[in-house]
């Protein structure tokens, strides 16, 4: 005869085993690029999806406000940034988290009607996840950039690259993403700050179909050059793949596994499988990092973006051992201790992913399945590799670094799970 607490423990173990099974058996495939309006029929005029847990205009940080104003001009809802800000202030836009619409977005994470989105199908569960196309480096909307050059690039993505990628992908059978990531991990990618291997592998896979389907050679050269010169092109795809893997596990009764971690530049939020779509939030932390010339920690915005979905599936900071240089961002950290970060994340996860292994760790799999009980028990919080935006709107990226998820989110979630399961 089991005691009540043994029964709860047994239920959690079974639920977590099912959660892990679904995560590991996921089969994410890049199948298309379509306008967001087509991918997400619930998207309406005046609706803006953003990164992180829910937030209103009044509480948004500088770069997030800059991006909201910029995307409103891009969509033709305002004639200039000043008018866009007034409209936002008056509540004219409906602001919602990407996560509620099967989507994710890096940094500010703007998703609106006309932007093209990558469509990832999880063929094990049949669900789809979406993410916009990575804009490249420099002044870009994901880091709060919103000037004419930023909007012009978004226009080119919408009118040229997005449709062309859609045609090229529909001409093929889709691109299986798990083997691509597995290979990237052996090439120095951790899929958050480092995506050079996977971006190159993706380009080499896409290029023949693009060449077959794009008639204009100048346009084709421009597209190949755009993808080829962006070391982070794969990031958005890694994010959509993460969302496609995690959505089918987002509501398993009794499961204590984290299904989403995300930040809006003000708050950090997590979701837990056994607690469905409820957010558990705490103030977001400042990344520790290195800065581009002309910028310092004084310019930095707190942590931001849905990109932490990659850590949620065992990549990014959890796969630091695959990209040892990134450990250099942390205080006294050096590449030779990168494996320690990955091993430490093993303390708060339930398993290793045997399909995503790291040669430098003797082919151990990436730590997978963050258990809120282990986070609270050990006090070890997920480590996240991230870019750093300027805290003022319109400027862009100022550096890169590493940040920790706040413990309070996990404590709140654990209390809620205990209440749900009748544990006092």
């Amino acid at each position, binding site marked *: 005869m089991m005691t009540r607490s043994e029964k709860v423990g047994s239920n959690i173990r079974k639920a977590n085993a099912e959660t892990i099974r679904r995560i590991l058996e996921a089969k994410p495939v890049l199948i298309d690029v379509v306008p967001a309006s087509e991918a997400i029929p619930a998207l309406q005029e005046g609706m803006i999806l953003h990164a992180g847990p829910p937030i209103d205009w009044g509480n948004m940080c500088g770069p997030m406000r800059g991006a909201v104003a910029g995307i409103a001009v891009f969509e033709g809802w305002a004639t200039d940034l000043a008018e866009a800000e007034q409209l936002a202030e008056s509540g004219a836009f409906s602001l919602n988290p990407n996560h509620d619409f099967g989507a994710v977005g890096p940094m500010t994470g703007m998703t609106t009607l006309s932007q093209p989105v990558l469509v990832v199908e999880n063929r094990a569960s049949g669900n789809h996840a979406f993410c916009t196309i990575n804009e*490249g*480096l*420099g002044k870009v909307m994901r880091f709060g950039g919103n000037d004419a050059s930023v909007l012009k690039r978004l226009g080119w993505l919408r009118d040229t690259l997005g449709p062309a990628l859609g045609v090229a992908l529909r001409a093929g059978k889709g691109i299986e993403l798990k083997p691509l990531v597995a290979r990237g991990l052996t090439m120095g990618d951790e899929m958050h700050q480092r995506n050079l291997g996977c971006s190159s592998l993706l380009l080499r896979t896409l290029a023949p179909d693009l060449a077959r389907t794009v008639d204009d050679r100048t346009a084709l050269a421009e597209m190949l050059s755009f993808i080829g*010169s962006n070391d982070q092109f794969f990031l958005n795809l890694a994010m959509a793949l993460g969302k496609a893997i995690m959505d089918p596990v987002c509501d398993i009764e009794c499961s204590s596994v984290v299904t989403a971690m995300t930040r809006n530049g003000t708050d950090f939020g997590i979701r837990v499988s056994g607690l469905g779509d409820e957010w558990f939030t705490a103030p977001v932390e400042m990344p520790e990092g*290195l*800065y*581009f*010339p*002309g*910028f310092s920690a004084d310019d930095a915005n707190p942590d931001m973006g849905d990109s932490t979905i990659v850590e949620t599936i065992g990549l990014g900071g959890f796969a630091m051992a695959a990209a040892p*240089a*990134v450990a*250099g*961002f942390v205080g*006294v950290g*050096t*590449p*030779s*201790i990168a*494996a*320690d970060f990955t*091993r*430490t994340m*093993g*303390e708060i996860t339930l398993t290793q992913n045997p399909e995503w292994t790291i040669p430098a760790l003797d082919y151990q799999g990436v730590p997978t399945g963050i258990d809120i009980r*282990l986070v609270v*028990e*050990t006090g*070890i919080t997920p480590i996240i590799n991230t870019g750093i935006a300027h805290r003022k709107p319109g400027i862009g990226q100022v*550096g890169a670094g590493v940040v920790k998820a706040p413990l309070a989110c996990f404590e709140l979630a654990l209390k809620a799970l205990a209440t749900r399961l009748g544990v006092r």
Partner: protein
Amino acid sequence: MSKIVNRVCAGLFLDSVILMQISRSITLLEGVEDAALMIGTPSNLDLLDNAKLLARASRKATGGDLILAVRAKDETAAASALAKAEILLERPTVGHTGTTTLRPRTLRSAQDILPTANLP
């Protein structure tokens, strides 16, 4: 009047994180206003330009080149900072090169590391 000094090393590549670490240590030197070591990609050239670190001749640099850029209070400080940057580039190790042994924080992971341990 500040002095901007650049040196373009053709065909030299080093990881951006170690370059940022070297940049930070050069920036801390006496008389240096700002400094950066960057690969000459278009977006990096923009960053250097915006930070008032890019000499006119360096605009021709490409993604295959490494740019050493210093802005200092005078020519002597700039030359000395550039020399220091070159020394660090010659031996870019960040100090700690030993291997570490991570100690497990819980019995669960200790047992993962040593599955044959004689634990009940």
